[in-house]
């Protein structure tokens, strides 16, 4: 548990350092994810404690967005002023992005002769 948590933090820190040094337009944690992924590929497997720690952390990933989300209270005035434009823009663009991405992926795969898999619903 402590080893796994340390490994995650070390990857994040390495990501932050790399972003600082290179000016890449990605956040440190995303680069840290890439570093850990490359490490796992090199090692050829996920150590069991890491699997458990990551599973625990990711099972409640959405909890981690709550503190930032409560920040909406600072912007309620500005949101009220333009609520219709913001609301329509957010709903329509999000729906379009979901539909366009899924259709593009399956359409292109069909073009290359792969069948869709699974039965999610």
């Amino acid at each position, binding site marked *: 548990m402590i080893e796994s948590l340390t490994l995650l933090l070390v990857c994040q820190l390495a990501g932050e350092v790399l972003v600082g040094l290179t000016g890449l337009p990605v956040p440190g944690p995303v680069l840290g994810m890439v570093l850990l992924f490359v490490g796992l590929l090199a090692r050829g497997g996920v150590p069991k404690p890491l699997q458990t720690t990551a599973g625990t952390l990711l099972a409640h990933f959405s909890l981690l967005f709550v503190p930032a989300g409560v920040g909406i209270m600072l912007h309620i005035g500005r949101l009220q002023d333009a609520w219709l434009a913001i609301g329509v823009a957010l709903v329509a663009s999000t729906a379009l992005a979901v*539909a366009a*991405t899924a259709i593009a992926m399956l359409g292109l795969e069909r073009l290359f002769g792969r069948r869709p898999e699974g039965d999610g619903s």
Partner: protein
Amino acid sequence: MTPVGDLWVYLSTNPLLHLTLTLVAYLAGDRLYRRFGLNPLLNPVVIAIVLLVGLLVATGTSYERYFEGAQFVHFLLGPATVALAIPLYNQFDRVRKSAGPLLAAVLVGSLSASLSAVGIATLMGAAPEIVASIAPKSVTTPIAMGIAERLGGLPSLTAVLVILTGILGAMLGPPLLNLLRIRDWRARGLAIGVAAHGIGTARAMQVNEVAGAFSGLAMGLNALATAILLPLLWSWLF
């Protein structure tokens, strides 16, 4: 002051109270969400935010004071993002097999998310700084704030719009994909990750591991694509 008053002053300035309240509000939301079979409309993040904002407004507590306690939860976003490498590794065979269509689909999704939001907000008469703040709204918070700053938007408004987008995507995405009869877990995960970053990925992860892995990957790729393309397009359009 009364003993109860003293206790309130002590607790309300101690990070323990708002840290605990954050977890309690989230667990209440999560209970409800699970009770109704992971219904996307009962997103636990929304329930927690509504409960907490109501409580803070009712007790006259500032966001800064709340965040002194909540920052410990907020901090875990970093290591949790790094941990997304694990589902990605577990699903890597699937990802590799469809790398081409996957990358192209992320580009399509990235452009349609930002350009349609900018177009609609402009047509509906939103002020330029709101348009610039809304442009990177499908990108994960820290990068979205950086992009908004470069475009002349307000980074802290962008942070809120990003969260709202994540919530909307996690709520509306699954029923929309059902309507479109898209049952492939890879495509479902990818679409939610592009449109609704980490909050969408959190939802995808709970429903299916394949969808979670594709969603986390899409979130990272979309962040990269938008951070590079949007500022270029912006200097072109405006």
